[in-house]
């Protein structure tokens, strides 16, 4: 974990309520896809946890959806503004456990961390394919970026307005063979993936956080291997330990 000041390089709208922010600063504490940063925002007491979407040198990319006061404040920030971040939080995905043909499954704002994961898997010599789920066509983001990685991308839309009609689990049935599952998204989606998936895998969870770095026990869940702090021992849990 590091605490340092980042400079906003860009903050742009991707869909109606989803934004991409690019920040430059000391990214040295970030070691794995699926880790997150915790962002201090003026006038708000608690920091806001957002997953790392991409990392290139000192340039950090986050994608966030406006859902409340904090993310709304974020959406109004402009280039040049400074932000105080805790970086390198959480365990992140362990790509070494993956087979050669993993499937990456993300829903909504669960998609962003999977982009960095896809890159990590590719550079580790694996051949991931990605399933991205959204409610409707206008909410889709990152599809092109995933495709540009040269991997197969399946997009599912709940209302059928784009790609496969239905949920990520519908896409999972159509995407062919895979030997490992990585997933991130809202809990009902994770559970559906867990039930549908035929392989071992890793799932990334969300919880309301006090500190984000393991000090307050605010975010603990029960697992088969004991109590785990989502912020420190997670957010990624192994399939084998999850208790729904």
């Amino acid at each position, binding site marked *: 974990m590091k605490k340092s000041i980042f400079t906003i390089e860009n903050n742009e709208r991707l869909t109606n309520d989803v934004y991409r922010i690019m920040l430059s600063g000391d990214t040295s504490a970030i070691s794995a896809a699926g880790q997150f940063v915790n962002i*201090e925002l003026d006038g708000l007491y608690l920091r806001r946890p957002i997953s790392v979407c991409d990392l290139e040198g000192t340039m950090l990319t986050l994608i966030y959806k406006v859902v409340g006061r904090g993310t709304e404040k974020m959406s109004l920030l402009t280039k040049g503004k400074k932000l105080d971040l805790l970086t390198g939080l959480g365990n992140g995905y362990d790509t070494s456990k993956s087979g050669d043909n993993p499937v990456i499954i993300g829903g909504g704002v669960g998609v962003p961390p999977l982009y960095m994961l896809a890159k990590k898997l590719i550079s580790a010599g694996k051949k991931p394919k990605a399933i991205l789920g959204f409610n409707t066509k206008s909410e889709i983001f990152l599809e092109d970026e995933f495709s540009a990685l040269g991997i197969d991308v399946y997009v599912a839309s709940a209302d059928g307005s784009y790609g496969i009609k239905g949920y990520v689990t519908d896409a999972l049935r159509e995407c062919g063979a895979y030997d490992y599952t990585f997933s991130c998204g809202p809990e009902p989606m994770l559970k559906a993936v867990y039930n549908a998936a035929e392989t071992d895998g890793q799932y990334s969870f969300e*919880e309301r956080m006090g500190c984000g770095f393991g000090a*307050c026990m605010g975010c603990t869940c029960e697992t088969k291997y004991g109590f785990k702090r989502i912020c420190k021992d997670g957010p990624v849990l192994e399939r084998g330990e999850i208790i729904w």
Partner: protein
Amino acid sequence: MVDTKVVLNNIVLDNPIIPASGTFGYGAEFTELYDLNILGSISFKGTTLNERFGNKTPRIAECESGMLNSVGLQNPGLKAVCEHELPNLAQIYKKPVIANISGFSLEEYVECARAMDKKENVGIIEVNVSCPNIHGGGMSFGVLPEAAAEVTKAVKAVTTKPVYIKLSPNVKDIAAIASACEEAGADGLSLINTILAMRIDLKTRKPILANKMGGMSGAAIFPIALRMVYQVYESVKIPIIGMGGISSAEDVVEMMLAGATAVQVGAANLKNPFACKEIIEDLPRVMEKYKISSLCDIIGGAH
């Protein structure tokens, strides 16, 4: 050179800054950030007899200038704390620590205190009386003078270490509880614990915390904590560890003027993991600004 030393009973602290129980774990998460030995002491996460998961999540909510928690005393239980956490803590922090203990019955307090009494690096036993008394109708030990006194006596009977009773602010007259604890033999008092509060999610129309209510802490509660420390200082002679919303070196001075001998910093550590370090480093500047040569001199100075 200003003098930041303060004395709690016979224990000399290099400075009055102590991370508050429940906001600093057992220190481990902070060691990668700074050397903990700069701290006056450390009050570690509340220990209960048995391992506890605590309450269901969500356990955290936010509010203006503060936060709510309903962690519910998650901890690995007395045995694991004594066998693993305390030795680990002793590795990274060389000074006496404060053992925060909790209980849902008198016996539980006594067992925890008895075990902590044997631990060399425990300097003070801090007895959190905010838990509901399962044998006494569920009302917290800390809201009735008699119950608080009873816990104090029971704990005092099994330890020679200084016993601090950590008071709940959810009372009509905190000075009366404080006096009852002093009469029952308490060596000092810690105050305040969190203030019972609530937030509701407008989208789901239900309380945000799974436990419905939780304890509020952070900067927002500072003036209430300060008032209580001031009131308690007027009715007891034993030292007070003041806490509740402390976020800056100025807050430390203000709390000490109200009557605190030392202070604990809680929620501020969660917002800014360097909070205690920054406060300690800023203290000499603030002391010079307000012409304080020794912190000891200002304790209760506002009375």
